[in-house]
């Protein structure tokens, strides 16, 4: 009778650890190196910044939004998003796109824009009396 609890307890513990391990694995990973994004055949969250020199393009017929992104080392990647331009896109400091790299460009399912903080430190003129 006691064996049952020991055996069952071991099964529960082993699979619980396995489940927790799998939970940490299954989440979509962030990637800030575009060379790796292009090599992978998995859905990733690519982080980078919008290349302002190459302007974005809105295609009204296909309802796509195309722009270029660059990572920290300056590698550029074409991103195609099915939808309209997100809010605050032009003022964004960095952009996070979720999707997959296929056929020479990045198919974005979702775009997150990171806006400059309102509360950044400003050079306040010291008002000495």
């Amino acid at each position: 009778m006691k064996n049952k609890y020991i055996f069952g307890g071991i099964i529960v513990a082993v699979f619980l650890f396995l489940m927790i391990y799998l939970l940490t694995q299954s989440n979509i990973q962030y990637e800030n190196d575009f060379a790796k994004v292009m090599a992978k055949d998995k859905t990733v969250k690519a982080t980078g910044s919008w290349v302002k020199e190459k302007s974005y393009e809105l295609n009204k017929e296909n309802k796509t939004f195309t722009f270029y992104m660059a990572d920290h080392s300056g590698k550029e990647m074409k991103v195609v998003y099915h939808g309209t331009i997100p809010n605050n896109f032009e003022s964004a400091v960095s952009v996070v796109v979720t999707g997959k790299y296929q056929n020479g460009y990045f198919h974005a399912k979702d775009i997150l824009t990171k806006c400059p903080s309102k509360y950044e430190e400003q050079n306040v003129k010291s008002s000495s009396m």
Partner: protein
Amino acid sequence: MKSYALFQKDFHSELRTRYAINSLAMFIIVAISVILFSIGNENISPGLTGGLFWVVIFFSAMSGLSRAFVSEEERGTSLTLQLIASPATVFTGKLLFNMILVFLMNIIITLLYSMLFAEFIIQNYLLFFLTFIFGNIGIAISSTLIAAIIAKAGSKGTLYPVLSFPILLPLILTSVQLTSFSIDGIPISEAVFELAIVVCYDIIMISASYMLFDFIWKD
């Protein structure tokens, strides 16, 4: 074999009273029509239909599955059951019965859902099928165990979903994700981790239930 006899007893008494079947059927019809009316002509995204699908499954399970042990308690037959059968046998019998109910209920929900919602289009049938099987097994095991816990409590109706929610949460979350994968048509090789989580959940719940049921049942 005793557990099969117990299952047969439950099956026949269910066919006579049709309490669980009726409450499940009413809940499924009400829930799906409310969703249908509230959506109206609006276009909803396929991912959202996958989520709503599991909402319907969760709450229908909550409305009907607690009967397994509550009915024994109401008729005062649980003491007799304790005398003639071991806890493991009782649990197996009740689990079989709930398993049949869950599969029946979810097949009906899936059929109604795919008929009524144009957006609910499955692209990877195999993945959806696997999700469906493992998800249903998980729901059946957890709901049977929780039904045994609440059978002796006072306010059974409210306690059941409240207790079930945290236990079923990992299963529901992963199943919602897997359903949206199968709607998007993602190949199984990319959903292996999520499928493995659901299988792990089933194994954990079944071994934990057989261990814990002894204590629940003897009190």
